[in-house]
């Protein structure tokens, strides 16, 4: 047993080393940028499957930590600011200062160096660290110390005769906008910037927007239709400040002062309020037919599939909303295919939707329950904490991208947290309208930690149309008459919610927006 075993260990170990070099290790991802008060460094990473990993000795080169491998137990001990972080080669759970932390993958030896998922920085090193450590994985940043690194969301629209660039800045940072030849330079008083630039079609005013290499600046390349610009700042709640740069064509048609280099000016009277879309009511609505493709969802005894019921109602609802309200309606799927969870809310966020409705059909043990239910998000205490921390630090949520882990999750979680009250009002309206035409459950409004709602940056509910586990309900849910009735009820609810949005917008922001009407397709 023992001699055979020792051969068995030596040979596979050699093979495993080969395998891990040849197969497991994918093309290296772009390095992380480490921003410290002393300067910028890079931290190389490798992609292993869908997990991005960083070498422990690369971390030890930039953080005051040491890593030791125990030759007998194979455990890796990381000494970090007086506490021990214990890693085990085949475990994705690790212990840090006596607390268990969970990582997306176990540590892995690649080319004789131990690697850990980059989340190790956020989960093992960052908690309680002073100076502060923050991992912004999608932005490829690790921020050390109290550096100001505002997130920027840059959008451009060119409705009619002028162009408008909006830059949402969080946390707000002092900035200047100056013209240098055929460029505008937006310079921030910050250690660095973390920009997300929405794709836009250049309509002559602005050619491109890009970050300046190595400086906290955005460079706006101006196009042939550029004549002059005016910059203004709209302070807003939630720790987001909005810079609006209006770009006008050359002279004649405008009385704006030509291209004076301008410091942030007080809000121009014709600049739209922050929630400009709301004044026009619900501009875009995302309907999410639950499940699809490989995921059939619940299944009735007669073979009715949840994914088919939800798609039938969603298609009817899309048509009904478009003809009645004129809002843009997007479906997260319009056929039978698998859609990842994160993509559903991301579609709504990326299209700046004003409403998100996820459609589902329910199931229960026993098969007697019946009726529709409307859910909105219930935050766990952790989510509440995340929201408080995020608000205290005045960081806020970007509008583009998907819900990834850690910092992003906290921020995305905060997104729906900001709308829980509105979502509960929406749930009440949806319940009242559904009640007129379809049977309701005994508990028609519920709250739960529902995954698809967490990331939605707008009022959002999940509607369970009925119970497929109940034979009578299955027959009802499978009928096209039901799909029509449910769609009509949901439309009525959306029309009512739209009316409350318009009323609130009128009360809150009387000046007519510059773009909201003309921007409509």
């Amino acid at each position, binding site marked *: 047993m023992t001699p055979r075993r020792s051969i068995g260990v030596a*040979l596979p170990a050699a093979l495993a080393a080969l395998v891990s070099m040849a197969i497991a290790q994918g093309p290296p991802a772009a390095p992380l940028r480490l921003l410290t008060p002393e300067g910028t460094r890079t931290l190389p990473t490798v992609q292993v499957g869908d997990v991005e990993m960083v070498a422990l000795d690369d971390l030890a080169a930039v953080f005051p930590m040491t890593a030791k491998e125990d030759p007998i137990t194979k455990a890796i001990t990381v000494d970090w600011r007086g506490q021990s972080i214990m890693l085990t080669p085949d475990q994705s759970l690790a212990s840090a200062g006596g607390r268990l932390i969970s990582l997306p993958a176990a540590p892995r030896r690649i080319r004789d160096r131990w690697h850990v998922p980059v989340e190790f920085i956020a989960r093992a090193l960052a908690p309680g660290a002073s100076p502060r450590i923050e991992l912004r994985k999608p932005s490829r940043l690790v921020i050390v110390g109290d550096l100001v690194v505002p997130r920027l969301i840059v959008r451009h629209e060119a409705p009619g005769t002028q162009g408008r660039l909006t830059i949402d800045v969080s946390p707000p940072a002092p900035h200047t906008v100056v013209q240098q030849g055929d460029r505008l330079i937006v310079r921030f008083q910050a250690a660095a910037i973390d920009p997300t630039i929405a794709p836009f079609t250049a309509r002559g005013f602005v050619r491109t927007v890009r970050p300046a290499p190595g400086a906290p600046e955005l460079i706006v390349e101006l196009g042939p239709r550029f004549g002059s610009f005016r910059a203004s700042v709209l302070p807003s709640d939630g720790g987001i400040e909005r810079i609006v740069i209006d770009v006008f064509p050359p002279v004649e048609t405008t009385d704006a002062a030509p291209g004076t280099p301008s410091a942030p000016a007080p809000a121009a009277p014709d600049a739209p309020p922050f929630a400009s879309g709301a004044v026009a009511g619900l501009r875009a609505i995302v309907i999410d037919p639950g499940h699809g493709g490989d995921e059939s969802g619940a299944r009735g005894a007669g073979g009715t599939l949840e994914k088919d019921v939800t798609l039938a109602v969603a298609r009817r609802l899309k048509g009904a909303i478009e003809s009645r309200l004129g809002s843009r309606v997007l479906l997260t799927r319009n056929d039978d295919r698998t859609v990842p969870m994160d993509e559903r809310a991301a579609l709504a966020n990326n299209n700046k939707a004003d409403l998100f409705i996820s459609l589902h059909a329910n*199931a229960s043990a*026993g098969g007697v329950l019946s009726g529709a239910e409307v859910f909105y998000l219930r935050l766990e205490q952790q989510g509440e904490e995340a929201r408080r921390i995020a608000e205290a630090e005045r960081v806020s949520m970007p509008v583009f991208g998907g819900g990834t882990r850690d910092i992003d999750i906290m921020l995305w979680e905060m997104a729906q947290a900001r709308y829980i009250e509105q979502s509960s009002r929406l749930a009440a309206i949806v319940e009242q309208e559904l009640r007129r035409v379809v049977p309701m459950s005994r508990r028609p409004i519920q709250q739960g930690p529902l995954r698809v709602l967490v990331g939605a940056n707008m009022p959002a509910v999940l509607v369970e149309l009925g119970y497929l586990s109940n034979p009578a309900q299955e027959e009802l849910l499978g009928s096209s008459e039901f799909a029509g009735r449910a769609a009509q009820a949901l439309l009525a609810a959306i029309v009512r919610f739209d009316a409350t949005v318009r009323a609130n917008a009128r009360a809150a922001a009387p000046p007519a927006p510059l773009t909201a009407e003309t921007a409509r397709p």
Partner: protein
Amino acid sequence: MTPQRAAGIAGIVLVGAALVWVLFVGLPRWTASTPADPAPAADAPGQASPKIHARLFYVTPSGSRLMPVEREVDFADTPGAQARRLVEAQLAPPPEGVVSAIPEGTKLRNLYVSGGIAYVDVTGEITTGHTGGSLAEILTVYSLVNVLTENLPAVTSVQILIDGKEADTLAGHVDLRRPLERSPDWVDQPAAAADETTG
């Protein structure tokens, strides 16, 4: 370069690959099924081992909620080992006349308690055997969350892992990416009023 030699090399590679599998897949699987808490050998089966009163959670007759059912569960002297006993009792076939919200065949792979969070690692049957539906999924999740948070003061929240990995959801509804706290929302108490005095 002779065919025999090539065959010999191929043989060695095959044997090596098999051993790699054993070492990196097989062994971890076997070892994973051994308890992580070093407390288990304490009680010998057959002897009257000490028990605790615990509340397990099953589906109400209507199917709309969970209800607590008092059962005796083996005592263990650490929170981690006790948590393991509780989850094993919850996963065991339910008593006559009640229905479990957890799909049949689901087994406990591993369990850790740390900093008030119980990490409950169960087998994939919890997903593959699931009927779907928000309600059914909520009841499955809160059976596990509540059995630990109600019976063990040391556990304030529960993170469910499936086959050793973090999971998004069981069947597309409940967010499992972070630990969940006890939720009385999904539990019917009235029938168990008498239990309040015994507990």
